[in-house]
């Protein structure tokens, strides 16, 4: 999890789990094929953010391009709505690939490390 400010911003892409309303929460993921340890490029990923009793689904985008092939990860951004209450926001990430395989990610279960909205 990182702060996804625009490129050039001094804090863009720093690691963080505490965000204020209006700030862009950045999700970055990698998908590995467990039989090879290699990246599974066909994977489709979705972040599921549970906020205020509702689940917001955010599709992730594969970041590598022909010009930047080294960016072998998926990204998504969620801007914290202004009416979001303070506290912990739970999220998961799910994936499916072209073979029909699926997977789910959950962050480490440490309270202080959870995505948290602060004033």
């Amino acid at each position, binding site marked *: 999890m990182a702060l996804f400010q625009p490129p050039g911003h001094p804090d863009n*892409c720093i*690691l963080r789990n505490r965000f204020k309303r209006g700030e862009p929460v950045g999700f970055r993921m990698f*998908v*590995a094929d467990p039989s090879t340890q290699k990246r599974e490029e066909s994977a489709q990923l979705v972040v599921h953010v549970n906020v205020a009793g509702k689940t917001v689904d955010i599709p992730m985008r594969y970041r590598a391009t022909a010009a930047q092939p080294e960016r072998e990860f998926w990204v998504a951004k969620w801007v914290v709505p202004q009416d979001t209450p303070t506290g912990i926001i739970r999220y998961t990430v*799910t994936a499916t690939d072209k073979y029909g395989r699926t997977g*789910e*990610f959950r962050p*480490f279960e*440490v309270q*202080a490390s959870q995505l948290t909205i602060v004033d």
Partner: protein
Amino acid sequence: MTRPRSALLSGVLVAAATIAGGPTIAGQQPAAPAPAQGRGRGAPPPPPEPQAGHPTGKLLIWGDVASFDVPGTLPTHCILTNRFKRGQRMGFRMTAIDGGSGDVENTAVLVAHLKYAGAAIDVPMRWRGVGGFPAAEYPRQPSEMWTGVWVVPADAQPAVLSYTVTATDRFGRTATFSPFINLVSQIAIVE
């Protein structure tokens, strides 16, 4: 059987960081000989027994870094960050998974390798699945997490540091983790 936090259903593991393939652990120092900072908990427990069905697939690892400021009541304890000041406790958090089953591979031995001031520092990691940890802080127990700590020296100069984490399990499987490549996301020592 220890269930993973990152479930692996029908074969695809979703991880939050790069998992490099191949036997890249060759030539790197094993965990046992390297002294760790901030320890003093006595001898480590014996390695756990192999879990039923292991090994299947590859060994997969991933993780992140966090502030391991103590005591645990500090507001910065266990928050995610990649910027650390002198004297601050840099925490490495990892998990290891048996690729075929999706279970935590609790026989894995992990070591973080930090490049600092031209030297390579090995930080052995400790599995948090054994021992009593406060339920309020770790609601999902036993924890699937390995942790290691490095304290930023008092004379450290501001710099960006690189690190990797290597793992090997009782079945001889190995894995190497490298963080996402964005420069701003790398571990940094700041004023």
